[in-house]
């Protein structure tokens, strides 16, 4: 019974895509027979159990949706989830034969498609990549991504080619970004930027009792400007620090703690803004820990024109004081912690190229004087400079033919009577508007050296290849495994590699949505921005630590250390922390930490601001950390209305899963990690009771948390440590997921069926390196998946 007829229409449609090999649109008859005997009884076109009609499902290798379903069918049988045990269970041999042939068929078809069309089709620069590229290309430091809309997300990643769309609206935005960047670059190349450096004493920035100016400013006391943590807006603002021009500034604060709590410093935050009643919104600049000894603290931030700085303690565990205490200055008689500033200095800095570097980038060795390019042969210089710039802009060598339309355009500007400088600027504008700038121009099959250079630099640095990579590519050496290995090492050791730890974490663990919700201030009064930033820092430094020391990816599940700063140690209740900044801290069993799954950042983004949901967290963990795909709930599942009045616990509400067979299919996977993580609240704090809000007053302990779970297979755990131990029994599974995520991120395309065999081999080989993260990155770069379109 052959259900899959080879439609001539389908074949005709496929013909343009066919290289030398034909893509089949039928499954082998033995495969179909197996499906008929074992699957059609439920998954036919009438019953459609589980919304799956296998009988009518056609096999279209070129349709990704179709392939997702067929892959799922394969996996269900392979994992012994289907057919359900109660029904007829095929003989092992029969099952084995089926799986072999089925896997082979899907793999073959998937591979053919990859060879002819590529896994990654027309990937373009995303927001961050676009900004970084313009920064490195034109030496500017302005926040360009503010001009561009957010990237669409797929599988958690914001650089996936198939999800990227284009429209004339977006082209308009790009042109705006290009024009702003060119304006800035050309301006800085010829004008000397006036150095800006201002320094203020504590007295100069404080509230002035004589004139009563700056009522919200710090208070002068014993020669220091002291600010406290109050509920008032922009308390601790310093009007003299207002800047006239938007730009990057280096801020040096000389300060110490005032009445620090025993054994701790005073965590202080700096923000910028208009800081007035009409505009109390403030932008984060940074934080530091003021100690008993006076020290210099240095921060760098982009500050907008017309904004001033506000500085005050930001650690909400210290408690806020009433504004009244400040008004009548009685605060100084109390033992209230504050930050005491001796002086503050602000200097304008430029993070991009120096003026000379910029001139070189724009004009090479053609001298410029008083804004005019001194050229003996403008036409020739125009050609030379355009070609040179195009190599950087297009990230590869360019032929005369490829350059000709752009060259013709630039020449036309010169012929119209414009100066060489203006013609050049127009020419650069055209080059930056080109699809060769915006898109990764990747050839089908094995990537050429330049394509490898781009993929590599956007993978590890999120920016365009540097001169070293471009030179190696030009020589054709980058595809050599030993050279590739050396380059990866060079790049991982370079400061730009920080960008990998940050952006990979932001994507993989969805930390880019850290601000999507804010913890309820009544339920979690201890939550503050310093904690939030510390949480992010924890994950980024943890990631970096694993890379630097090639530590096993099992550490993502559990580790005997954490990268903490004092604020985090306080929040997590970890004793004995000392030192400044992030320290590698050894963990004890009763610290309840270890791994990335107990990071505050992760626990926050997998919850909302008020409640946690074992289902949300369970799905989050399964998909992101264990690499399991979970189907969405059926339409009639009904949503759980969270109830924070404390009457009913979430476990009671979700109990329905255990009693309904069709729910258990997915929920036996989702609920265990979800419940294990119930021991952590929305701020990542450890809890043994849920917090509840009474009608008035502070939060109080609600029902007890029960993080235990009995799995249908007989296994069970009583807490998150037990859950982790279960997961750690399969380090290869953990590694497989990381490989998949890294390859997805590195290439800009999700994992397809044809990728599975190589990934399996990579994971097998990594066992010899104890699944070290650095080794994993190397293995990914050396893979066919990475080195092919």
């Amino acid at each position, binding site marked *: 019974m052959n259900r899959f007829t080879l439609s001539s229409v389908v074949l005709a449609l496929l013909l343009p895509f066919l290289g030398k090999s034909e893509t089949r649109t039928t499954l082998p008859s033995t495969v179909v027979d197996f499906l008929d005997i074992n699957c059609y009884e439920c998954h036919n076109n009438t019953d459609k159990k589980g919304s799956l009609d296998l009988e009518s499902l056609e096999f279209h290798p070129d349709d990704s949706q179709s392939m997702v379903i067929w892959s799922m069918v394969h996996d269900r049988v392979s994992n012994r989830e289907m057919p359900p045990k109660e029904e007829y269970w095929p003989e092992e041999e029969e099952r084995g034969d089926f799986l072999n042939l089925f896997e082979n068929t899907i793999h073959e078809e998937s591979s053919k498609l990859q060879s002819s069309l590529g896994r990654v089709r027309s990937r373009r620069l995303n927001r961050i990549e676009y900004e970084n590229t313009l920064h490195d290309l034109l030496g500017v430091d302005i926040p360009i991504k503010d001009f561009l809309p*957010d990237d669409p997300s797929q599988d958690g990643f914001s650089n996936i*080619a198939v999800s990227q769309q284009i429209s004339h609206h977006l082209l308009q935005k790009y042109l705006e970004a290009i024009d702003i960047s060119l304006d800035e670059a050309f301006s800085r190349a010829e004008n000397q930027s006036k150095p800006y450096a201002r320094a203020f004493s504590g007295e100069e920035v404080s509230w002035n009792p004589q004139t009563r100016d700056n009522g919200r400013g710090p208070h002068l006391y014993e020669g220091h400007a002291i600010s406290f943590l109050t509920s008032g807006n922009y308390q601790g603002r310093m009007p003299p620090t207002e800047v006239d021009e938007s730009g990057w500034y280096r801020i040096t604060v000389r300060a110490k703690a005032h009445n620090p709590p025993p054994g701790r410093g005073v965590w202080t935050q700096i923000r910028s803004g208009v800081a007035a009643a009409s505009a109390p919104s403030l932008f984060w600049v940074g934080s530091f820990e003021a100690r008993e000894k006076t020290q210099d603290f240095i921060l760098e931030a982009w500050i907008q024109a017309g904004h001033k700085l506000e500085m005050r303690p930001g650690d909400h565990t210290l408690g806020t004081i009433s504004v009244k205490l400040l008004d009548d200055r009685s605060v100084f008689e109390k033992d209230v912690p504050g930050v005491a500033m001796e002086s503050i200095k602000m200097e304008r800095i430029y993070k991009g190229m120096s003026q000379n570097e910029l001139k070189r980038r724009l004009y090479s060795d053609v001298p410029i004087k008083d804004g005019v390019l001194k050229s003996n042969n403008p036409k020739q210089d125009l050609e030379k400079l355009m070609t040179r710039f195009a190599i950087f802009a297009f990230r590869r060598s360019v032929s005369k033919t490829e350059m000709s339309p752009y060259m013709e355009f630039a020449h036309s500007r010169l012929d119209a009577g414009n100066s060489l400088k203006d013609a050049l600027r127009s020419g650069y504008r055209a080059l930056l508007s080109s699809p060769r700038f915006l898109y990764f121009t990747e*050839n089908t099959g094995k990537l050429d050296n330049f394509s490898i250079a781009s993929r590599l630099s956007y993978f590890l640095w999120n920016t365009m290849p540097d001169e070293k990579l471009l030179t190696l590519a030009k020589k054709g050496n980058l595809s050599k495994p030993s050279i590739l290995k050396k380059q990866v090492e060079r790049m991982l050791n370079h400061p730009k590699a920080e960008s990998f730890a940050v952006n990979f974490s932001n994507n993989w663990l969805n930390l880019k949505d850290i601000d999507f919700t804010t913890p309820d201030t009544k339920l979690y009064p201890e939550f503050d921005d310093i904690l939030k930033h510390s949480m992010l820092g924890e994950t980024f430094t943890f990631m970096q630590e694993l890379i630097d020391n090639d530590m096993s990816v099992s550490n993502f599940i559990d580790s005997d250390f954490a990268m903490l700063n004092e604020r985090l140690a306080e929040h997590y209740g970890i004793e004995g922390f000392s030192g400044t900044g992030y320290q590698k801290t050894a963990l004890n069993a009763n610290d309840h930490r270890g791994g990335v799954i107990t990071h505050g950042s992760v626990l926050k983004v997998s919850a909302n601001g008020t409640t946690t949901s074992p289902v949300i967290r369970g799905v989050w963990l399964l998909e992101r950390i264990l690499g399991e795909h979970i189907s969405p709930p059926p339409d009639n599942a009904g949503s*759980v*209305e*969270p109830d924070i009045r404390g009457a009913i616990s979430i476990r009671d509400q979700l109990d329905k899963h255990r009693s309904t067979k069709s729910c258990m299919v997915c929920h036996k996977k989702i609920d265990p990690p979800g419940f294990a993580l119930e021991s952590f609240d929305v701020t990542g704090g450890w809890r043994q009771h849920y917090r509840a809000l009474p009608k008035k007053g502070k939060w109080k302990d609600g029902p007890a948390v029960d993080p235990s779970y009995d799995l249908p297979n007989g296994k069970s755990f009583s807490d998150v440590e037990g859950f982790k131990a279960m997961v750690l029994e399969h380090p290869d599974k953990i590694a497989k997921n990381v490989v998949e995520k890294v390859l997805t991120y590195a290439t800009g395309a999700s994992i397809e069926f044809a990728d599975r065999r190589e990934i399996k081999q990579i994971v097998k080989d990594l066992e010899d390196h104890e699944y070290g993260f650095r080794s994993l990155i190397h293995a990914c770069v050396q893979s066919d998946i990475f080195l092919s379109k």
Partner: protein
Amino acid sequence: MALPWLEAMTPAFAKSSAYLPPKRFVSVSLALGLHSPNLDPIDFGFGYTPSLYLSKIQDILGDMTIVTGSSHPDVSGGHKASGSILTGAPYSRSAVFKNTISIDQHMAKHLGHHTRFPSLVLNLSSSNSPSYTETGSMIPAESSPSKLFDKLFVADTKEEQAQQVERLKEGRSIMDVVAGDAKTLQKSLGAGDRDKMDQYFESVRAFEKRLGASEDWVQMPKPSVAMKPPRDIPDNNEIMKRKKLMLDIMLLALKTDSTRFITLHIDGNGESVPIPGINEGYHSLSHHGLDEDKIDQLTLLESVLLETWGGFVRDLKQNKESSGTLLDQTNVLLTSNLGNASSHDNKNMPVLFAGGGFRHGQHIAFNKEDNYPLPNLFVSALQRQGLETDRFATSTGTMTGLEMI
């Protein structure tokens, strides 16, 4: 290029009876829904008893219809489904999502060429919007009222105009070069990139056309309005003030026929709106978890949202145009992808629909357990615009019970 339709804005232009007043469409969308116990009337049909929220805009109930028990078929995913608000494209968290054209862009595509701006896509604080092109590309929203006002009404100096024309002309030449190169590139890249490069090529051509149209419009005088150029409201918490300001500019944009299709999206983040009685962030309140205090605060907040929207409808009603009012020529929608933000349910979306062409004053109540397809309302709205459509996304026809007059 068609002349814009001009009503008597300044005495220099007489009312032109040769032109029929154009039809407009405005959508206001909320990211966080509306609390349905406060919004949904208990009874249905004409002359229903207004609910708490609707009683705040009593005077315009006769000009609008409230629809309950409807949503977009096959859309789930809570917040993430906001892309489907105006497109009705089926969405689920796990599938590869390709959005389709939104209703306002569909209108702009066919009818937008008459005005300086085929459409306006706005937001109070970010660039998120529910407006999508036919290739499923989200149109970034404008969130600065001062920039918007500038674009619409502030005359540029002769030098600025000359500069703009220069840049636009050069932009067009560049796009011409780029379009040609895109075709060359497409040949060298291979079959896998064909579709995307086609889309890119189409976008470049469309951009070229837009630059050309903008060039034509540069020299046309912008309409003069009584309102002074506004300053942006820097405080993120002032959602209500920002909404009012944006709606005021939108009203002028419609009156002056600067555009006929506008969408305004209101995100919901941590803003603590400075209304007495509210001390929590908007997002936190919408996820009330059945907490009574939060619901009380949410009620205060949403009441003002409703009142402001109602105020906009009222302003349209009070503006005379031709033989009727501006409201007679404008349809205004208020909706959200979330029927219940606290449980992230995309069913039972809040839907208020006002303006000319329909018999209003009704509560059309569909089945809350088995929702009616909301795209049907979009078909009705498209037909009102004079477009011969009987399908939009997953629609099954025009909306039952909503009579076109």
